């Protein structure tokens, strides 16, 4: 019997994973259903735009600035191996807009926002505030989940757009001050090379990642266990699951947008 124990454990883990995927899918469907039916709490949506979008700007901006600078250095060093140092502006632009802007922006927002959403909602659950909402004839899905989903899905593309600009500026700054690139030529190469789809594909990824961040924060918050341990676990799970889903979704979206 002991020989079969690992298979039993594998089976239980698989079933548990499938059950979790099912729960998340049902939660997402329920959230989408609530999203298209009234009432819509505009004040709460505006509040979440401020919390999720505006207050994430410094984190996303600094991440993009340093990433753009480091990317320029790496491409210059790598390109030098086959005399292709001149491609720095083009590769920085495409790398930031298509991949690093949305992915790093999404991951930074996951760290900042998914954890905060999960901790806030889990604490509300533990202190009976979610029950209190229901007794006040207010659906927690509508009042807590929908505003966060809307705000995160719409503000992430804006954050990505800002992050893209700052990231490209980081590359420009390093290239022109450290690597000897001409300012005008750098800008001309960047704008001449970039296509609309390079930018819009990144913004679409941002919207998908924003949805994932808010969904994971709300899901783990609403399903948290009791006490401080439950809140802590919900917070950790929200960040980990949002980060993994962002990376998985990034691959799938890249495959959908650019393969062929």
């Amino acid at each position, binding site marked *: 019997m002991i020989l079969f124990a690992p298979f039993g454990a594998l089976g239980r883990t698989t079933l548990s994973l499938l059950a979790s995927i099912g729960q998340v899918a049902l939660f997402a469907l329920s959230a989408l259903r609530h999203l298209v039916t009234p*009432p819509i709490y505009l004040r709460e949506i505006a509040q979440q735009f401020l919390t999720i979008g505006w207050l994430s700007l410094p984190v996303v901006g600094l991440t993009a600035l340093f990433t753009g600078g480091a990317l320029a250095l790496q491409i210059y060093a790598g390109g030098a191996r086959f005399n292709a140092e001149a491609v720095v502006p083009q590769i920085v632009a495409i790398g930031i807009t298509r991949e690093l802007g949305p992915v790093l922006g999404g991951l930074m927002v996951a760290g900042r926002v998914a954890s905060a959403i999960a901790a806030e909602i889990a604490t*509300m659950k533990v*202190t009976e*505030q979610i*029950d*209190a909402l*229901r007794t*006040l*004839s*207010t659906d927690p899905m509508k009042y807590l989940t929908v505003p966060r989903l809307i705000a995160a899905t719409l503000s992430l593309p804006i954050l990505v757009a800002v992050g893209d600009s700052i990231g490209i500026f980081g590359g420009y700054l390093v290239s022109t001050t450290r690597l000897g690139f001409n300012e005008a030529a750098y800008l001309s190469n960047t704008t001449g090379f970039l296509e609309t789809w390079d930018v819009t594909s990144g913004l679409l990824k941002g919207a998908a990642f924003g949805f994932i961040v808010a969904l994971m924060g709300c899901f783990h918050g609403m399903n948290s266990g009791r006490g401080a341990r439950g809140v802590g676990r919900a917070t950790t799970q929200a960040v980990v699951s949002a980060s993994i889903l962002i990376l998985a979704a990034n691959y799938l979206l890249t495959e959908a947008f650019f393969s062929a």
Partner: protein
Amino acid sequence: MTAKIALKDLTKSFGSKHVLRGITLDVGKSESLVVIGGSGTGKSVLLKCILGLIKPDGGSIQIDGQPASIKSLESFGMLFQGAALFDSMPVWQNVAFRLLRGPSKLPRKEAREIAIAKLQRVGLPPETADLYPSELSGGMQKRAGLARAIAAEPQIIFFDEPTTGLDPIMSGVINDLISEIVSEMGATTITITHDMSSVRAIATHVAMLHRGHIHWHGPVGDLDTAQDPHLRQFISGAAQGPIETLR
């Protein structure tokens, strides 16, 4: 006469643990029922079933002769054990929460005025309106929770352990407030508590829950003359008796 709240054969289990084993109970209009019983006997589960926060496994709940529904919530007010104030908004917005949203939404100015009036009714000065719940003491939070419970003038109010965590004097104040406000409003109330001073201050009727059943039910005046050994042990707080306790 139709009972305001009528429970029939209400059952609820969590896994193999049978918490409610067939609760049948009528609460009349303007009656103040206090449900007593030891810890873990299902008092909170009973309350949450009536409120629709937990779905019972069997039985029926009727409000004014109609099956309880989401719509019933509009006639309910609830004071939670820890007050459950929303800590992301100031006290007045907590009190006026229902008045600021939903079908009977009022302008903010009007809702704020009502909230301040309700806060004053429960003994809180208007200055507390703009404070956040974390800036209030436990007793003040309970009062603010009470103001929120009565803000929309509900026909039915539930109180979950209204005096837990308060000193005896503040407990007395909260008990008196509940008693006064409930009789002013003519509301029907269900209170769950362990606190016998609350029972005597608030109740018109008392029900004792034990092992998932209503073990004793009667007017509060009969409480001291009832001979039921379980009830006697609970009232006297004796460690020895028919109610088994862990030592």
